[in-house]
């Protein structure tokens, strides 16, 4: 092996020596043992690599909540998988979404059935194809309407929503259960939709301060549970914009 060939191979040699048993690396390392100039080059290269590795790690801190979110996401995914019926309904709903509203549903974390159904409804409300059950700029009026309709009502609202004006509300039935949607407007990002459903949250559902984020095409959703209710906030905007509302 020539010196330049050895350098080429050793460029991919991890500086802590994990690859020393690889046949190609072994040959290149033997060559370095016979060639002082190559050995000096290798020492310097390893020092450089160790430095870059440590600086790269230092410059990319890992979010503290990531590990917890992964665990919760996987649990939610598993519980969703258990219900074959739910998956079938979800798939059918997704096909309707793609076909009717142009929403792109890439394979990703699964939306639960009620989430997919409400996203479909929300897309219809946004496009004007589906009318609101009740229109009002007074949130109190909308909540009274939902109460009369015996539909889920928001026990607590995310703080950022209070800055927006109410637009209207809508209920739908999914799996023999009423789901409420309250729409807000006035922000730069357009309509924001708060979905409220009773008793759908998994045992370890995320809280408002660490919601579960799922993106579907143009839609970004944040889901959390509080008390006996699960909430989903959906809008066509960035995570930062949605986060600002929570």
């Amino acid at each position, binding site marked *: 092996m020539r010196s*330049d060939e050895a*350098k*080429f*191979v050793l*460029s*991919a040699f*991890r*500086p*802590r020596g*994990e*690859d020393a048993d*690889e046949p190609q690396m072994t040959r290149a390392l033997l060559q370095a043992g016979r060639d002082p100039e190559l050995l000096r*080059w290798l020492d*310097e*290269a390893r*020092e*450089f*690599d160790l*430095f*870059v*590795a440590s*600086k*790269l*790690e*230092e*410059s*990319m801190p*890992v*979010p503290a909540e*990531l*590990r917890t*979110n*992964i*665990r919760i*996401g*996987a649990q939610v*995914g*598993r519980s969703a*998988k258990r219900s074959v019926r739910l998956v079938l309904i979800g798939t059918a709903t997704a096909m309707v979404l793609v076909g009717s509203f142009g929403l792109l549903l*890439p394979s*990703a*974390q*699964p939306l639960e059935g009620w989430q997919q159904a409400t996203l479909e409804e929300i897309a219809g409300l946004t496009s004007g194809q589906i009318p609101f059950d009740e229109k009002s700029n007074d949130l109190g009026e909308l909540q009274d309407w939902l109460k009369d309709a015996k539909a889920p009502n928001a026990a607590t609202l995310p703080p950022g929503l209070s800055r927006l004006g109410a637009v209207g509300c809508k209920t739908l039935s999914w799996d023999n259960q009423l789901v409420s949607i309250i729409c807000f407007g006035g922000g730069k990002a357009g309509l924001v939709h708060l979905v409220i459903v009773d008793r759908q949250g998994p045992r370890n559902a995320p809280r408002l301060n660490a919601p579960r*984020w799922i*993106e579907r095409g143009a839609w970004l959703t944040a889901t959390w549970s509080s008390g006996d209710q699960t909430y989903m906030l959906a809008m066509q905007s960035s*995570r*930062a914009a949605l986060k600002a509302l929570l």
Partner: protein
Amino acid sequence: MDFQELVDANHAALYRFALSLTKSEDQAADLVQQTFYRWAAKGQELRDPSKAKSWLFTTLYRENTKVRRHEALLQQVALSEVPETITEVSSIPDEVDAAAVREILFAFEEIYRAPLVLFYLNQLSYREIAETLGIPVGTVMSRISRGKARLRRCLSEVQARHPTHKVIPMFHDKTLLNEKRRS
């Protein structure tokens, strides 16, 4: 290794790799979560448990590529200005900071950034990097070699432009430094 152990052992490196691909902290976190979800759904069917780490990196990379391809954002620009086999240790800066390293690496085209970051994360061998990225082993070596050459050059340029900018001792090649001082 159970799921939680797998997460504990790999989530940080996967996040950093995802961040280098997406350059967005939110997208990187989503990508990592999606990767582990895929593991929870399918990965445990993997016959060889020792391949779990490689499977995770490969899945994350493919997921990102799928999304990026869809968005037509994948860059395929070649480093034409860098010779094929630059391996000399020359023009090495002796001081530079962590933010500069990240900034420079993140500015690289993805075909160089991905293998370089995987190499520096120190989790995968060059063969595993080749499998993860779906390219031949020789191409991985070539891209790492050329990428490192460019990284050295860029770091030197940064240091030359900002000699007093948040400096951290980095490299102590007395011979080279003395040569530089003499010249």
